Each structure stands twice: as structure tokens, then as C-alpha cells.
């Protein structure tokens, strides 16, 4: 089973939940798709077994072969190519790496210059496999990295936790594509509830079953809880506001490995999730 952990915004405790649910599931796989800030590995400190660079197509022009026909210039719908003094200029930030110009060029003057956009680290710690994607700074889209990680785990029978990018970007959509079940981590603020609604709508449009974990609960009203109840999102657990948990987390430690009570807390949430998710999969076998 593949469980995606999401949140409407950063700072809700999404990584805390994803890391600790993984920590109480030996033999599972943790996949960090929060590629702009992949910090799951900071908690797990895995031993890296393999690092793989991720590249995308980048047009490399062989000026000796180019005959100046401009077919590539007019083909590129992003206008990433231009011609000055009979030489093709490529605008890297505009190029969408579709590879079309290389196909259209009649003299094969365009080849794949392989632009590196990031890296995927694959490692282990305590019988848990940690896969972590990192997008190079300045790159706009990490979707190819997410897709590559999804490929790595698509056929596994192991329990997988996918730590998704916060918010509702296309990177989030790609991250939940192979998930069987989605977990929304919320915080008890009005802004939090608003962002929760956005990401919940995204999950619905992707036709995935979901449930929620309410984080940082205190005695005041929780607009996120109200939203979950209104929308019939099952609540898998409530994590009270807890300075000690916050401290352990901010020190980069895995709470469930540090203290038995946290281990029990997250194990309880996990068993509810597994139950809810299996129930959903039976009810909707197509998923």
C-alpha cells in the first residue's frame, strides 16, 4: 500500500507525521517528494547506497550540421529558440525539455545535452528504505524527479509513505499519482483550514480516498477539524500541541524512536490509517 502524506501549506507537521509513521513501520519505504526542501533524510540519517543524477532533455546544437532552416525555431511553442547570425540561441529557462526540436530538425543537428536538474538518493536505516529527491536550486520544475521516484516504487508490495510537497502545485499532483490513500496533516488555524480545502479539492479531483491527522491541537476551536467534519473526512488521530515533541523534532530526531509514548501514539494512528485505507480499497477496488 502507498500512502501519500500531504498538507495545505508548510509547517503543519507533514514531515513529522510522514517520518514517524514510517518509523513505526519497519520494512517500509519512505519517499521524500518534497524536493525543494527534502528534510526527511535529516531525521532518518540513512546510509546512502546509491545516488542518481536526474537530467532532462536540453537542446545541444551542432553548429556545423545546422543549415539555418529555422524549423526548430518555429516548432518550439515556448519560443525557447531563436536565430541570430545563422546560429541557434537556446533560452534554458524557457525550454520545457520536450525534445521536439531534436525530432523536427531535418539534419539531426540537435541532440540531448542532458541538463542536470537534481539527484535521487536511495539509502537505508533500521530496515527502512529512504528515497529522497532533491531539486537543484534555481530549477523550476521537479516533476521529472518525482516521476522517476514513482517509477522506482511503483511495483513494490511494501508499505510506502510519500512525503509530498506542501500546497497544491503540479508537483503535489504528481506525488499522489501512484498513491492508494492520502493523509492530510492539518493545523488548527483559519489559514490552515483554507489551505487544507485547496489540497483536499486537489485530492478529490484526482479521485483518491483520504483521511486527516489533526496536528497541534489545543483547547481552542479548530477550523480544520470543522472542515473535516463538514466534508466527511475521517480523522485518523489528533496530535496535541506538545512542546517536547516540537523540541525532539526540531533537533532532527525521530520522536517515535526517542520515546515509547510517541511510538505508541504514531502506531495507533498508523493502524487506523491501514484499516481505513484497506476498507476504502475494498469498497472501491478500482483504486
Amino acid at each position: 500500500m502507498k500512502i501519500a502524506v500531504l498538507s495545505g501549506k508548510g509547517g503543519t507537521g507533514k514531515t513529522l507525521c510522514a517520518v514517524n509513521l514510517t518509523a513505526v513501520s519497519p520494512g517500509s519505504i519512505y519517499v521524500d517528494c518534497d524536493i525543494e526542501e527534502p528534510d526527511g533524510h535529516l531525521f532518518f540519517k540513512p546510509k546512502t547506497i546509491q545516488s542518481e543524477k536526474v537530467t532532462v532533455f536540453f537542446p545541444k546544437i551542432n553548429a556545423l550540421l545546422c543549415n539555418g532552416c529555422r524549423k526548430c525555431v518555429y516548432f518550439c511553442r515556448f519560443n525557447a529558440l531563436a536565430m541570430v547570425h545563422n546560429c541557434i540561441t537556446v533560452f534554458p529557462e524557457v525550454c520545457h525539455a520536450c525534445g521536439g526540436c531534436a525530432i523536427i530538425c531535418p539534419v539531426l543537428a540537435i541532440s540531448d545535452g542532458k541538463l542536470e536538474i537534481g539527484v535521487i538518493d536511495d539509502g537505508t536505516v533500521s530496515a527502512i528504505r529512504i528515497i529522497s529527491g532533491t531539486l537543484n536550486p534555481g530549477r523550476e520544475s521537479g516533476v521529472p524527479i518525482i516521476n522517476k521516484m514513482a517509477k522506482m516504487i511503483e511495483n513494490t508490495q511494501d508499505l510506502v509513505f510519500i512525503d509530498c510537497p506542501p500546497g497544491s502545485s503540479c508537483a503535489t499532483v504528481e506525488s499522489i499519482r501512484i498513491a492508494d490513500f492520502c493523509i492530510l496533516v492539518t493545523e488548527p488555524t483559519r489559514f490552515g483550514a483554507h489551505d487544507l480545502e485547496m489540497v483536499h479539492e486537489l485530492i478529490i479531483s484526482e479521485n483518491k480516498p483520504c483521511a486527516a491527522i489533526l496536528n497541534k491541537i489545543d483547547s481552542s476551536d479548530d477550523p480544520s477539524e470543522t472542515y473535516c467534519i463538514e466534508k466527511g473526512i475521517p480523522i485518523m488521530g489528533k496530535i496535541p500541541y506538545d512542546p517536547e515533541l516540537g523540541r525532539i523534532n526540531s533537533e532532527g530526531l525521530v520522536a517515535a524512536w526517542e520515546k515509547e509514548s510517541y511510538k505508541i501514539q504514531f502506531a495507533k494512528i498508523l493502524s487506523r490509517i491501514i484499516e481505513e485505507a484497506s476498507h476504502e480499497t475494498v469498497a472501491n477496488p478500482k483504486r
Partner: protein
Amino acid sequence: MKIALPILNTNNGQSIGPSFGRTSHFMIYDTLTKQSNVIENTAMELQGGAGIRAAQIIIDLQVNVLICPQCGENAEVLLKKANVSIYRNNGTDIFENINLLIQNKLNSLDDIHPGFHHSR
């Protein structure tokens, strides 16, 4: 010398338009023949890379100088490659600006704002 300007059709005739890539027409003025020519900017409607395509049009017309209020980063890179100088207009009157340019009274457009990039 050939001069290009993005132009705008208004009630009082034509004036210099506010943007380079997204303008509807360009005026091309030739200082040798003193002829002016208005051409359509086919890049205007493009979703992304309008500035690049507009610069390509200007370059292909063998323009030497562009007068405009602002120009995206990518278009600037391309225009510089093709040795097109870029000057900022003073007011929006077309022929007044052409005269100012000829008298060397326009400033070169050095504060180029970064182009608007579409996310993937």
C-alpha cells in the same frame, strides 16, 4: 540606420506603446530613406516567449536601434547578440523620439526587468 518602436493606435494617432513583446505593431523607420513602415507583431498573442519571438522579428528586419520603455531579459539578450542597441523613449511621441535619438539625447535602457517566466 533602421529604428524600431513598439506602437499603439490611439484616438490622437499613433504613439509609443508601453511594452515591447506584447505590443500589437512595430514601426520601422529608416534614417537613410526617411521612410516609415508599420508591421504587425505576430508574437503578441503567444503564450510564452513573446519577447524572444518579437526580438527575432526585429532582428530579421535588420534593425539597428530599438526605442521602447521596457524590454524583457531574454529579448534583451537576443537583441544584444544581434547588436541591436536599446534606448528608452522620452514621452510617447514617435517622431520626437526618433529626433531625440538622432541627436543622441536618449538614454540606453539599462534597467531591464526580468522577463515573466511561465512555470512548467
